[in-house]
């Protein structure tokens, strides 16, 4: 247990170090880099260093302590924290929904080859349908869909869009994992005349874990993106996505401010991914470790 805590602490320290490193690189480049970017063969490869392109790190962070709008009690930090927390809850809902759908689809596809052949290509296609084409449709469910006592809340549309992005990597990764069970173990289960479902739970899911973990990590990130995009595109208030675009509109006058919201979104993604990693550590704790090197 203490070991786990120590590892977590170590990771945090490393992350802070990494951030510091990025800040140093950013400022160094800003100091020495060409104001108007560097071009190679007429293509701009090196970014510009102007205030619009790369605000100073301290400028970005100093924005956190300013009031959000003049004269208000609420600082930008408060606003970003509140927004991130709001979006976090939507993302978790979206992720849960996406994971449910993704795993269910993977199981169906693993069970029935016909389903896999019939559906998988369309899952791929679904991922190339831009949210912009779907968002208005999903949003229109808000307040209109009523099933019994359940009224479709507006935020659920955002979560659904998060789930829409999250389910795909989860479905593909899980499908691959379910197929990864060693033939010898499958034979063993066959020799027990174990039903497909039994084999699924006792053998295929455990062997799929190494494949599912990265899939869930991608799904967690995707869910955040989906929710944030949905907030922007559907005009849902309260979340970090909305903040990003509101601050982005101020970028002409205050290019540093939008970074506060961007950082908020990044932190959100980290928390989501961190949760998946934590689950991974717990689930995989009793698997054979790779030979110590």
């Amino acid at each position, binding site marked *: 247990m203490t070991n786990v805590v120590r590892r977590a602490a170590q990771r945090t320290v490393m992350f802070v170090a990494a951030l510091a490193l990025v800040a140093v690189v950013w400022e160094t480049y800003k100091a020495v880099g060409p104001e108007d970017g560097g071009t190679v063969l007429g293509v701009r490869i090196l970014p510009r260093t102007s205030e619009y392109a790369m605000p100073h790190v301290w400028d970005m962070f100093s924005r956190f302590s300013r009031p959000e709008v003049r004269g208000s009690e609420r600082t930008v930090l408060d606003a970003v924290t509140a927004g991130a927390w709001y979006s976090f809850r939507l993302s978790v809902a979206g992720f849960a929904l996406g994971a449910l759908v993704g795993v269910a689809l993977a199981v169906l596809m693993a069970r029935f080859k016909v389903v896999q052949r019939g559906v998988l290509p369309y899952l791929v296609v679904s991922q190339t349908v831009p949210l912009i084409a779907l968002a208005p449709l999903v949003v229109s469910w808000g307040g209109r869909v009523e099933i019994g006592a359940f009224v479709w809340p507006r935020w659920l549309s955002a979560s659904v869009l998060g789930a829409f992005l999250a389910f795909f990597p989860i479905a593909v990764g899980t499908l691959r994992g379910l197929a990864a069970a060693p033939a010898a173990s499958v*034979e*063993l289960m066959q020799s027990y*005349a174990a039903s497909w479902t039994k084999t699924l739970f006792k053998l295929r899911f455990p062997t799929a874990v190494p494949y599912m973990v990265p899939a869930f990590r991608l799904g967690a990130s995707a869910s955040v993106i989906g929710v944030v995009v949905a907030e922007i595109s559907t005009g849902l208030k309260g979340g970090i996505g909305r903040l990003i675009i509101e601050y982005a509109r101020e970028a002409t006058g205050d290019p540093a401010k939008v970074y506060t919201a961007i950082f908020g979104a990044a932190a959100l993604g980290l928390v989501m991914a961190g949760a998946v990693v934590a689950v991974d550590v717990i689930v995989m704790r009793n698997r054979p470790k790779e030979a110590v090197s």
Partner: protein
Amino acid sequence: MTAVSIRNVSKVFNQGKPNQVDALSNVALEVKQGEFVSLIGPSGCGKSTLLRLVANLLEPTSGEVVVNGKSAAQARLDQDYGMAFQQAGLFDWRTVRKNIELPLELKGWDKSKRSARADEMLQLVQLPEFGDHYPWQLSGGMQQRIAIARALAAHPPLLLMDEPFGALDEMTREYMQGELLRICAATGTTVVFVTHSIPEAVYLSNRVVVMSPRPGRITKVVDVSLGGERSEDTRNRTAFFEAITAVREGLRGMHAAHVGLGNDDR
């Protein structure tokens, strides 16, 4: 009554492809209820394949396998047999105890009953204190013993065992042989047993089936008439040595000519 009836079975892998292998060719064998039959033969002669066919993990290319009067497939569905594979094949994510309980879980036994049986089995394979370890923390021989415990746990009427004692030391091996015979006698279990050890085959079996490779065929069946009870003494009886010699000759002859000698004495 016949427990296993293998009727003119052939098995070809990769049929029609350049790497085609005739694993079994025209194999016929009857195993009576309660009988202990060993398969012996050079590696690659199709022993594991034959066992897989009986277990309905493979379909014969031609011929038929009948188990307990039903098709092999039905017998598998009815869980008429327990099987121990050549590779231990334990599940890494389950503790030793949970590995043993697996077939019981699938039969729907309740927790306390499962746990009691697992304890009993751990005792049987002399690893009572390793129940909560994970398989990869055990030595090779220990893993194999767990796999045996798993195969025996549900007390199946038919046991299919593929070199189960291969990785055991002599002491443990003799102990396990004794236990296996004791259990089988008490429950009337039929056993089809693959081994490379001639004494082991003779000591355990009512009949020893000698096979030859490429294509895998039965070349000789040696009846062992050692009577019911076996003991340490058994290993010193003439019938024991005679049977050993008979099996050895079956194997040698084949080794010399590599083509079966046709001395199928059934």
